[in-house]
């Protein structure tokens, strides 16, 4: 076999006392797609940042095509033929595709000649790799999938032979993701080496040749993809056996507890974010709203929970209307039995600099059991928080620790514990497992099913299609602010994916 495209020897990196990377050895064969999988905080991004020159390793060596490489900055990485496609695109929104591609590689002070050269080079790249994008289109007019293509073109334009993609499918519809994988396979056939960082097991199985698993800063295993299974990888990631599919019995839905009728919401510019949406959630069922991020789910949740102004329509909670002026009192809604696990855990659901016990009463701090007149009953609050920590297996088990020091999964458990323990009638949950590790996902899913079985009405919004499919009793698909379809829990991914892309859009089905 030829020289490894990338070889890492004994890479270690500490941040203070946090060991982000521990003695990592990794060989990536040229002309392959190599997956790197691991939970949030396992050290994947740190490792790639070292390779791309954002961080320096404390110890260890990097070899590129057999040659020892010292990478101090991303320019060194680019010079070695390494390109990176970031999770959050690094594009200038009001520039054209061409302008973005040459940004930082303009070459000469006068743009005219370099633009002309870049245009022909870009056309060649687009032709060779099947990456068609109009070079004169402005970035903000392009859909997300095409913006990502521009990122890939940028890397290729700089002569990348080795492409690193960091969680590339987070913002894509299933169809767009499938298209991306086709592009990656084609790049591989052209002899490029691709490193794919992800936490989604399905993607690894779908597209990679080899896969390395990271856990707590260490590289725990490397496998040939065809010789491994999803179950084995999950176990390697978490360090124990994981139940990937949620076990649940049949739903026994009762009466409608939450009803939304003809709800329309506009943003500040007057663009319709939620367009004539009607839906109902019955006691004892989970209704899932599927959709690509940014299709109005956030606005829908915020309006139902009284935090955003509606243009028209009604929301009824247990027979009584919810105020939709955007000035509704969240405390009143909580009293009436509406619990809300917000999408934006970091800014809305929690106050990260607070101690854990202070977050455990957020929104319920007016309740008699937590106060003595104007004073907080600190003893009661801490005792209560400690009970929830035990019941929801929140770790570390210290109710006085700052919330920012908990991992994503445990932070989410703090929010869930708070909202579920209120014994609500309706539970509204946004992105319950975003940024949450596999082990905690299992726990959270079980608790949501428990809530349903206790007769709560659960409205679930998630961009993770797997999650929607395994939890929901009914699935609604949201696209461009509208509910474009309703399916049962047995709907196929392809069917839902098509709805998520807007049925009319034939491009998605090509």
């Amino acid at each position, binding site marked *: 076999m030829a020289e490894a495209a990338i070889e890492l020897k004994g890479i270690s990196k500490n941040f203070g*006392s946090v060991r982000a990377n521990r003695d990592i050895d990794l060989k990536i064969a040229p002309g392959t797609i190599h997956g790197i999988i691991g939970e949030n905080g396992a050290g994947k991004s740190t490792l790639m940042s070292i390779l791309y020159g954002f961080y320096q390793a404390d110890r260890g060596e990097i070899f590129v095509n057999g040659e020892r490489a010292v990478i101090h900055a991303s320019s060194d990485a680019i010079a070695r033929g390494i390109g990176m496609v970031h999770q959050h695109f690094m594009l200038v929104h009001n520039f054209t595709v061409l302008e973005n591609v040459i940004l930082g590689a303009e070459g000469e002070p006068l743009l005219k000649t370099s633009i002309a050269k870049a245009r022909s080079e870009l056309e060649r790249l687009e032709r060779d790799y099947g990456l068609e994008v109009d070079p004169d289109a402005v970035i903000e007019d392009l859909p997300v999938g095409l913006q990502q293509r521009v990122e890939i073109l940028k890397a290729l334009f700089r002569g990348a032979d080795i492409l690193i993609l960091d969680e590339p499918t987070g913002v894509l519809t299933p169809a767009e993701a499938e298209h991306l994988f086709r592009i990656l396979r084609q790049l591989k056939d052209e002899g490029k080496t691709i490193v794919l960082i992800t936490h989604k097991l399905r993607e690894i199985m779908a597209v990679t040749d080899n896969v390395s698993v990271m856990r707590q800063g260490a590289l725990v295993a490397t496998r040939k993809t065809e010789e491994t299974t999803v179950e084995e990888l999950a176990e390697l990631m978490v360090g124990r056996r994981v139940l990937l599919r949620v076990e649940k019995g049949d739903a026994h839905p009762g009466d409608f507890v939450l009803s939304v009728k003809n709800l329309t919401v506009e943003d500040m510019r007057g663009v319709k974010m939620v367009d004539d949406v009607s839906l109902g959630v019955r006691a004892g069922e989970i209704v899932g709203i599927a959709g690509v991020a940014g299709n109005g789910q956030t606005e829908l949740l915020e309006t139902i929970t009284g935090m955003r102004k509606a243009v028209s329509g009604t929301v009824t909670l247990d027979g009584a209307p919810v105020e939709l002026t955007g000035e509704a009192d969240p405390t009143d809604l909580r009293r009436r039995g509406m619990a809300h696990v917000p999408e934006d855990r970091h*800014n809305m659901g929690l106050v990260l600099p607070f101690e854990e016990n202070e977050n455990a009463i957020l*929104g319920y701090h007016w309740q008699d059991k937590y106060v003595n007149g104007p004073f*907080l009953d600190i003893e009661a609050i801490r005792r209560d928080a400690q009970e929830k920590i035990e019941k929801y297996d929140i*770790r570390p088990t210290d109710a006085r620790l700052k919330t920012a020091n908990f991992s994503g999964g445990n932070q989410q458990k703090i929010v869930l514990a708070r909202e579920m323990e209120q014994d609500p009638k309706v539970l509204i949950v946004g992105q319950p497992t975003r940024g949450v590790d596999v082990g905690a996902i299992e726990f959270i899913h079980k608790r949501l099913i428990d809530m349903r079985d206790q007769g709560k009405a659960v409205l679930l919004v998630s961009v993770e299609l797997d999650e929607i499919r395994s939890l929901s009793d009914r699935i609604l698909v949201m696209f461009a602010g509208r509910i474009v379809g309703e399916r049962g829990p047995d709907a196929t991914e392809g069917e839902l994916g098509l709805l998520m892309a807007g049925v009319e859009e034939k491009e998605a089905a090509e």
Partner: protein
Amino acid sequence: MSAPYAKLPAWADYGLIPLINLTVAFIVAGLVVLLIGENPLRAAVILVDGAIGRGQAIAYTLYYATSFIFTGLAVAVAFHCSLFNIGGEGQAYVGGLGVALVCLTFDSVLPWWLTFPLAILGAALFGAAWAFIPAYFQAKRGSHIVITTIMFNFIAASLMVYLLVEVLKPAGSQAPQTRTFLEGGQLPKLNWMLEAMGFAVRSAPLNVSFLLALVAAVLVWVLIWRTRLGYEIRMRGYSPKAARYAGVSEVRVIIVTMLISGALAGMMALNPVMGDQNRLQIDFVTGAGFVGIAVALMGRSHPAGIVPAAILFGMLYQGGAELAFEMPGISRDMIVIIQGLVILFAGALEHMFRPSLQALFASFSPQAVGAEAKQGEGA
């Protein structure tokens, strides 16, 4: 991509880092003293001796510190709500009007210990009222509180000059000030306290409002960390979105916080007006409102930090006056420079030495610091 830094033990966080910052501020200040051709060591000795060398000096230091505790607390309370109240100067000035009106009304009929509570009320009410208008505009109209409070400092200054010259000045007097309060409007001095500890004090303005300042510090602690209101203030301060989600009315919490902040700033007036000069004079605040910002920054908005920070600035004020007197090369402006450096290093550059200190601590005891960030994984 966040770079997780190790957590420091509390004593390093609240003790060592301020100490390092302060030391650096004084080293740089020493260089400035060197630059103008004076001996920085001698200057330091004069400054410290002038601030705490004798009973007399200590009494003056604590007198200045009293004002700074009030204004520091005022700024800190607003900080907790993420509001930057730089109107302490004006609120204290108007607070002085409240004190003077109470004293002028009751000084002939009530003993001081009955006038005092009324004067506290007057100071707090007038200070709060002056903070209310910017607070209302911030809460309802989104007018930035930094801009409005600083504007209100100027309005307060003009208003007070007008009132002192046109309304409050006794007929026939040339000085823009009220008449001197009678005994019922004068706070007892605390010099006996220092004398009881063996210090000699000739005459110094330290008075019972110092004790009130300490009580206020304790009450602010209770307010911020032990009451529902304080919880809501901090919630709004850290995350307005979370406060909205939790059903905390932003309008209400902004206005209430600013009223408390203004009341504390107003109470600063008790110290000079009722405790020392026994009359309301022009410009009696002399920058204490602004020093409060530095005190709150340095004390990290915690009463336990504000009190020592206020005493430190009291030392700079008192020792600085001595220094200007002893060393002709050093003017009062030099003291302002030192104060500025303290603010720069303790406030603005607060995090300058933190990363290297954290690395140092981590290398000593890798398990003791910051380990909890990892334990939470994979639950």
